[in-house]
């Protein structure tokens, strides 16, 4: 059998292959026809806007990462094993390793996001241009561009994790890598979410509602910011989100293995490496699955994307089975892997049920919209609440199946839960490829409209766009469920890390300190949601005034005789999104530390539990209700219940506007929030265990 170092080296190699394929696809997409001069001009507005935002975001993130890296280096330079004993010893090497790992995590996440964004803003115009020839060609350009994000993300993640493991052999250092990735993800996701909805709401409320110009009309000053927002929110943001869950779930499982198998070094190494091996197989399965995603003549993009996911899932299941059976692993680990994998895919498709116009919830919400906005909102919100149930049942099933089957097989059930999360996220390469396809074809449609391309091209991009919306809904459900399982594993890892310092974590609801922690944790996701959504309304208010000002002071814009000032809206959205991140970021990092250092590790355990419960519920509710309202509006716009301009349409527009920050700002950021808080807690657990005020 191969030695453990070889497995880590193979994981590293798989990461480079993934990155290599991503680079090849990047070049392939760039070689495609960029289209007419007009189309390229429109695309350049979006590209420049995206670059402006990314430049500002990454500058802010660099400063944040350096600052936090310095703090981590200082804090972990003290030998935490002996903290609180009075004999302070220094371990500068460990502090430096942890800080470098943190910076590497942030850097890898940033590079993956940058690659994804860079190719997305090149691919949109090329996909629109290819749509002049065929649906299949346009699909291929968009999907391959999406795959750059998917493959770069998993490639960089596994390169980072395996390289750190090869260099240090210590999973706790990889925790630093994971924290770096998550910290960046939180800011990228929340910032992207605030940006995209600021632009979207301003463009819709002034352009569509007040002035009456159609979607993607080039006369709307906010239209470019809106298209840029699709990329920063759904490509860079969602990519960073899944990247952080992917790394965190792997690290959690590695940490659990290190702790559970501590008495048997050989078994410890084998089980620490098992999650990395699953990631390696997931990458290979994704690389094969991507090859099967194509639209033949008369084919459907939605079917192609779903087919790709199912094929990748099947290939991975076969590979994982082979690994467990041939590698001599306990069979319980296979059941845990498969439970996570199947649950992830099923929950993804369940989200589609609640947000797709093919099913009852959306149709019913559209139907009652004729009675007004209030009824639309109540109905959509109620279905959003119902939509939580199947996902929670899925998470419960995956948790219990993986726990008990692993336990029955003679391995700690907690490790099984961790492996279940890894199993779910192992096919992230494919999932993110499908997700990133969405904003690319959304932009392609916008460019076709703004560049005055033919009706046939717009029809083709409409078909591509519809499939992108479904992929987006599936990915959101998948990402939230994966994050839920990940934080459950991280929670266990936190308990193990604290336990390793001699404190047996007893989280009892009869203990008032724990209850205090639970309540404080439970309130954090709603507070975070409120802060991000209020940021959207504040920034949208400013941008609405800017768009109104442009229309008022320059009537030539609407008359089509002078161009609007797109850059002003792009700058406003960028500035607003970044300045709005301060408090949410502070909340994510400072609050768990505050609870831990003041109330102690049990309270922090309760805090994490409370935040996980409300975080998952809020994330599912907001994402699904928002998607449902959006599609109810589109359903009415498709000519049902009175169509555009009807009372039902006016009500559904209100519902959609309410749902916008739900589904694209607060909802998807919550999974990153709970991951970051769990990671901060796990990372600082040894210090908190040694130094806390209350007990």
């Amino acid at each position, binding site marked *: 059998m191969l030695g453990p170092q070889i497995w880590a080296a193979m994981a590293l190699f798989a990461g480079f292959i993934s990155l290599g394929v991503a680079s090849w696809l990047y070049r392939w997409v760039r070689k495609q026809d960029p289209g007419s001069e007009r189309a390229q001009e429109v695309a350049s507005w979006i590209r420049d806007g995206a670059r402006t935002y990314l430049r500002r975001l990454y500058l802010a993130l660099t400063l944040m990462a350096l600052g936090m890296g310095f703090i981590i280096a200082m804090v972990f330079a003290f030998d935490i094993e002996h903290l609180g004993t009075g004999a302070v010893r220094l371990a500068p090497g460990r502090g430096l390793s942890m800080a470098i790992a943190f910076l590497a995590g942030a850097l890898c996440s940033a590079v993956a996001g940058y690659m994804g964004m860079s190719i997305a803003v090149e691919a949109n115009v090329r996909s629109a241009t290819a749509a002049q020839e065929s649906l299949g060609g346009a699909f291929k350009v968009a999907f391959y561009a999406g795959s750059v994000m998917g493959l770069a993300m998993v490639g960089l993640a596994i390169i980072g994790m395996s390289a750190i493991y090869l260099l240090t052999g210590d999973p706790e250092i990889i925790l630093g890598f994971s924290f770096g990735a998550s910290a960046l993800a939180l800011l990228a996701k929340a910032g992207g979410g605030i940006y995209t909805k600021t632009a979207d709401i301003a463009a819709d409320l002034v352009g*569509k509602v007040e*002035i*009456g*110009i*159609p*979607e993607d*009309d080039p*006369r709307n000053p906010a239209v470019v910011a809106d298209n840029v927002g699709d990329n920063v929110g759904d490509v860079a943001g969602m990519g960073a989100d899944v990247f952080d869950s992917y790394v965190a779930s792997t690290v959690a499982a590695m940490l659990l293995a290190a702790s559970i198998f501590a008495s048997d070094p050989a078994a410890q190494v084998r089980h620490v490496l098992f999650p990395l091996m699953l990631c390696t197989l997931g990458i290979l399965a994704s690389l094969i699955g991507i090859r099967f995603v194509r639209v033949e003549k008369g084919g459907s993009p939605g079917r192609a994307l779903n087919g790709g996911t199912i094929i990748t899932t099947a290939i991975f299941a076969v590979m994982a089975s082979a690994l467990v059976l041939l590698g001599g692993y306990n069979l319980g680990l296979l059941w845990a892997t498969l439970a996570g994998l199947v649950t992830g895919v099923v929950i993804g498709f369940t989200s589609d049920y609640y947000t797709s116009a093919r099913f009852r919830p959306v149709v019913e919400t559209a139907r009652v919209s*004729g009675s007004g906005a209030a009824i639309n909102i109540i109905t959509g919100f109620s279905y959003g609440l119902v939509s939580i149930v199947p996902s929670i049942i899925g998470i419960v099933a995956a948790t219990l199946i993986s726990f008990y089957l692993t336990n029955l097989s003679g391995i700690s059930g907690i490790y099984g839960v961790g492996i279940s999360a890894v199993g779910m996220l192992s096919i992230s390469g494919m999932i993110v490829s499908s997700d990133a396809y969405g904003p690319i074809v959304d932009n392609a449609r916008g460019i076709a409209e703004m560049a005055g391309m033919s*009706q046939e091209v717009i029809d083709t991009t409409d078909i591509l766009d519809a499939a992108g919306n479904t992929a987006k809904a599936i990915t959101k459900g998948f990402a939230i469920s994966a994050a839920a399982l990940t934080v459950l594993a991280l929670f266990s890892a936190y308990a193990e890390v604290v336990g390793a310092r001699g404190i047996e974590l007893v989280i009892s609801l009869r203990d008032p300190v724990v209850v205090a922690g639970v309540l404080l944790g439970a309130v954090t996701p709603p507070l975070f949601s409120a802060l991000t959504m209020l940021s959207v309304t504040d920034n949208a208010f400013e941008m609405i005034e800017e768009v109104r000002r442009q229309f*008022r*002071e*320059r*009537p030539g814009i*609407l*008359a*089509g005789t002078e161009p609007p000032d797109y850059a002003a809206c792009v700058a406003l959205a960028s500035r607003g999104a970044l300045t709005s991140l301060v408090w949410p970021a502070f909340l994510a990092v400072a609050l768990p530390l505050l609870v831990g250092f003041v109330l102690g590790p049990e309270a922090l355990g309760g805090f994490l539990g409370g935040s996980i419960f409300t975080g998952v519920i809020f994330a599912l509710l907001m994402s699904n209700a928002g998607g449902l309202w959006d599609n109810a509006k589109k359903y009415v*716009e498709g*000519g*049902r*219940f*009175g*169509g*555009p*301009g*009807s*009372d039902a*349409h006016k009500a559904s527009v209100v519902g959609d506007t309410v749902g916008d920050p739900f589904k694209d700002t607060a909802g998807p950021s919550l999974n990153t929030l709970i991951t970051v808080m769990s990671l901060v807690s796990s990372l600082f657990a040894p210090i908190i265990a040694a130094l806390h005020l209350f007990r």
Partner: protein
Amino acid sequence: MSRDIHLYLSLIPEALIASMLTPEEFGVYYAVGTSKKARGQAIFFEVDPGFRHDYFRIDDGFRRCVPHEDGSPKASIYISVYRVLEHVSLHALGKLYLATSDGRVLGLESSDHVPEPTNGLHLYQEIAPVNPLVVSSLGPKPFYELIVKNPNILIRLPAICFAELRLGELAEDPEHGNVGDLPYSRIEHLRQCLRALATKTVDSKMVNRTEPATFSYRTIKSGIFVGNEMELRFYPCPSPMTLRAEHYRWWRSAWSA
């Protein structure tokens, strides 16, 4: 560069206007407005600039229609805003222009043939000189004749411009017909009015007396009718497919409103 002076008969609101703008420019100006003027949907005819009637001081209006000091063309000189339609000869009318609220303009030519009435009930949006929404069992031509030429009815107009709007399944089955993409407000009241036509001894019934003259262009069934005691003219609206293929910008604006 000297510009011709055009004469327009606006229907929302009813007015006779002299302008140095071409019909497309005038449509954009009238719908989109300037920084200080109101805006919204506009419907207007181009009128033969040689047309004269004692009721209007057209020549005075033309004399005042001169470029601004900066050389830009004069957009509008209002010649009359009262009882205009009834005093304009239909022979002087050129194309009819439909401008969306965001300034996309579609020109319609008149047709020699008034369409044959289809089966079922009808819905009419009167545009000028008054603008109620009316349901009727009469086809467009009998409806016009009833309002303009029938000496026996109480409410009679000297001229009228109206659009026939789609009723979809409601035309045949007011009780249970599917609303589909009909955007009308208070759809139950509309059903009631349609049902009343079947049970009462009236040909027409007002659905809403305070309906604004503006309406969604995508609801136009066949086209727009304009008639006075002398004649009826019909301006057919192309099918949605044709509009989408040949007038995409206008179609997209009209269909998303």
